[in-house]
């Protein structure tokens, strides 16, 4: 086996994120993904350049978008000879896309790639009931008028009721928020702590905008220049007034619309390459994507749905021999404030780390001043598949500005999975 190469993070671009059914309600996943990738191409002057791989996807998709990544590439100014793979791993999609490309860059299989993700819940696919779609297929196959009539025998108007999309877990019937509410109760995460984390996220994101941190990470879209979920004036006191959004009846619910991410539309993309490829094109190396790890746990049997990042990070640390405290930045995706707080608490918990993570003892606490320093999903929003690429871009820029250091990424996903990665400079 040849020696592994370092994987350079060259740049990233994203659209502003907008709450579902607001500024982007007329846009499709393909349009948003095109905008994000095109902005990355413009920024690095990749017009007409053949990339070795584009990994991109969306969580909420239409059946017609079965070749989303490739169709998107064809609409950009990248060389039409650039192949693309449509991928999906729920909220881990674009981070997983980056890890897949990174492994190939490291091994020398490819030299350059874009990993990207997009999501819109404004343009969700609405499908017919299975019974009615079977009838339509039968009509299509029918050769005679009699057969056509037969296809509709026993038809009832009820069949026309569309089947709405849902972000509920198919195996538990609970929504992600319901699951996270259970986690918050299990780990005794207080409402106050959740609201404080949410307010801090808004304030840090707003400060990052003010200092221009996002200027070269974002491209305007549909006349929008900033994430429209962000509230710079957010305070724990204001958030404390909101009612529980999931457990509305017991009086013990702590998750609210304010400390949970809203449904969001938007897209993000990140450019990865070998150092040689970047140098040959005169492009910068912001940081290096060192290693990633994906884990899953049996949430159906009762584990916390969004606790898998604890496992992914523990396994990643074991493989690299690093301690949880050996990082300058932590980017823990804020699906819910409670998710982040459960994760941190679990790492500090001796029993959890021994029993669930198979470690000798607790991983310990992290320096909270290093956590999500430019805000995270609670503030900017969370278009499922785009979040990984957003986080990688932010962390790479942070490390580049610092000059050297190490950052940890973790993203929880539906289906009880977690994706983690280490980025270094």
């Amino acid at each position: 086996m040849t020696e592994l190469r370092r994987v350079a993070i060259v740049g990233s671009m994203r659209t502003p994120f907008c709450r579902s059914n607001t500024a982007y309600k007329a846009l499709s996943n393909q349009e948003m993904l095109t905008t994000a990738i095109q902005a990355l191409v413009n920024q690095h002057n990749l017009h007409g350049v053949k990339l070795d791989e584009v990994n991109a996807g969306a969580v909420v998709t239409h059946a017609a978008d079965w070749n989303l990544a490739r169709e998107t590439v064809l609409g950009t100014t990248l060389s039409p000879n650039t192949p693309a793979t449509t991928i999906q791993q729920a909220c881990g999609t674009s981070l997983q896309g980056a890890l897949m490309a990174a492994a190939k860059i490291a091994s020398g299989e490819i030299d350059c790639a874009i990993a990207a993700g997009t999501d819109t819940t404004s343009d969700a696919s609405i499908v017919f009931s299975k019974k009615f779609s079977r009838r339509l297929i039968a009509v299509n196959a029918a050769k005679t008028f009699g057969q056509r009539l037969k296809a509709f025998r026993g038809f009832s108007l009820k069949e026309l009721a569309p089947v709405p999309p849902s972000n509920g877990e198919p195996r538990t019937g609970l929504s992600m928020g319901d699951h996270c509410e259970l986690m918050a109760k299990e780990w005794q995460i207080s409402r106050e702590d959740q609201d404080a984390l949410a307010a801090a996220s808004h304030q840090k994101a707003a400060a990052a905008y003010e200092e221009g941190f996002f200027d070269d990470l974002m491209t305007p879209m549909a006349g929008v220049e900033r994430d429209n979920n962000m509230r710079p004036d957010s305070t724990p006191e204001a958030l404390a007034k909101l009612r529980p959004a999931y457990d509305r009846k017991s009086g013990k619910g702590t998750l609210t619309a304010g400390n949970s991410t809203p449904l969001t539309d938007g897209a993000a993309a990140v450019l990865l390459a070998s150092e040689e490829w970047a140098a040959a094109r005169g492009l910068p190396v912001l940081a290096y994507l060192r290693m990633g790890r994906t884990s899953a746990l049996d949430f159906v049997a009762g584990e916390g749905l969004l606790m898998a990042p604890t496992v992914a990070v523990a396994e990643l640390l074991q493989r690299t021999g690093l301690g949880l405290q050996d990082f300058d930045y932590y980017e823990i995706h804020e699906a819910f404030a409670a998710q982040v707080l459960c994760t941190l608490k679990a790492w500090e918990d001796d029993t959890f780390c021994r029993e669930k993570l198979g470690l000798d003892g607790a991983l310990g606490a992290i320096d909270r001043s290093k956590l999500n320093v430019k805000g995270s999903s609670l503030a900017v929003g969370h278009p499922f598949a785009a979040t990984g690429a957003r986080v990688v871009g932010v962390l790479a820029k942070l490390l580049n500005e610092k000059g050297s250091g190490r950052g940890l990424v973790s993203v929880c996903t539906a289906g009880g999975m977690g994706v983690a990665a280490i980025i270094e400079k």
Partner: protein
Amino acid sequence: MKDGYMKFVHSGAGRVIAKTLGLPIPAKLRRKGAPSTLGPVLIGGGELTGLLQSQVAELGYQLGSTPKQKVHALVFDATSIKTPGELANLYRFFRQNIRRMDRCGRALVISRPPEDCDSPEQHIAMRALRGFIRSLGKEMRAGGTSQLIELSAGAEQNLPSTLSFCLSPVSAYVSAQTIRVNAVELAETADPKAPLAGQTVLVTGAARGIGRAIAETVASYGAMVIGVDVPPMQGELDKVCRDIGGRALPLDICADDAAALICEAARANGGLDCIVHNAGITRDKSLAAMSDVQWDLTMAVNLQAPLTINAALLEAGLINDGGRIVGVASISGIAGNKGQTNYAASKAGVIGMVERYSSVLSAQSISVNAVAPGFIETEMTAKIPFGIRQAGRRMSSLQQGGLPVDVAQTVAWLANPQSIGVTGNVVRVCGQNLLGA
């Protein structure tokens, strides 16, 4: 001047009636300042495609698009076409994509000047594009325009200002034009929002109409304007100049001391970076009935004054190196017009000035161009009898009259120091008027 017909066909009932009767429904043109965001630009063709993509992206246009999206512009690089047979590539590009064009879209072809081509086949192929672009202009729907940019070899860095003009709503009323762009060393790029910052621009006839629009427009791009008009107009001139932070210079450009006074004003401002010879008059009469005064005055204001002023400024070195001279011709000067032997002669003379001086002054990197307005809604055209006025408006591909600001934006593009590679051009601002085309 209100175009009542246009207002009518855009009303609910008017639209139905116009559609039923098959009457023309002129599109509402998108002009600068319209709030809508423009759709993506699709670029294809030859070796310059990548360069065009980066220049267009730099101008702030969206590049990527999905097949379902309407596009703002189609840009084709035809510089790699070597034979008439290869024009099929151009055909295919537009054929595949023309239906995706959004309203007020832009079709743009970049070619090489035919006479610069080494091979006869390429010369002929490049010449063929002029016919293509003119027909396409007539086929464009909903306020769309088409232009051909003949780019000299090595003039790539001179392209952006012209690319910007052609793609932007500022060229709303300019269509089917062939624009020549030469390779000229550029001063460092200025602020794209204020390309005329630090530039001194003298505009004659600045008190009203097109001249006033020119003064206001170039000032909006950062220029210091010296506005000239005849002393009886001083009140209006003062107001225009005050509003734009410029200087008023009331004088009759035909007076004996006019050139000296203009030189004095130019010297006081460190020389001129641009002069716009906008002042013009009509004294219409059939030749058989024309008086000496009508002939002499028209020629003196429209042609002789610009020549005299140019000569004096150049003699005194008061047009700065890299300066721009912009004349105002007219489609009458191209097509001729009944009752306008004097006017058409003077305006065709302005075209002669462009042809001659653009080559003479190229050594000093001074560009000489002219705009040729078609039917523009001004006090001058408001005097035209109703029937002829309606016909004048409709007899163009855009089926409407232009506005003074359309001419002014075109002048502002030619006055931009980044457009110095554009010289020897007469650019019609006429919505592709049928006259003389």
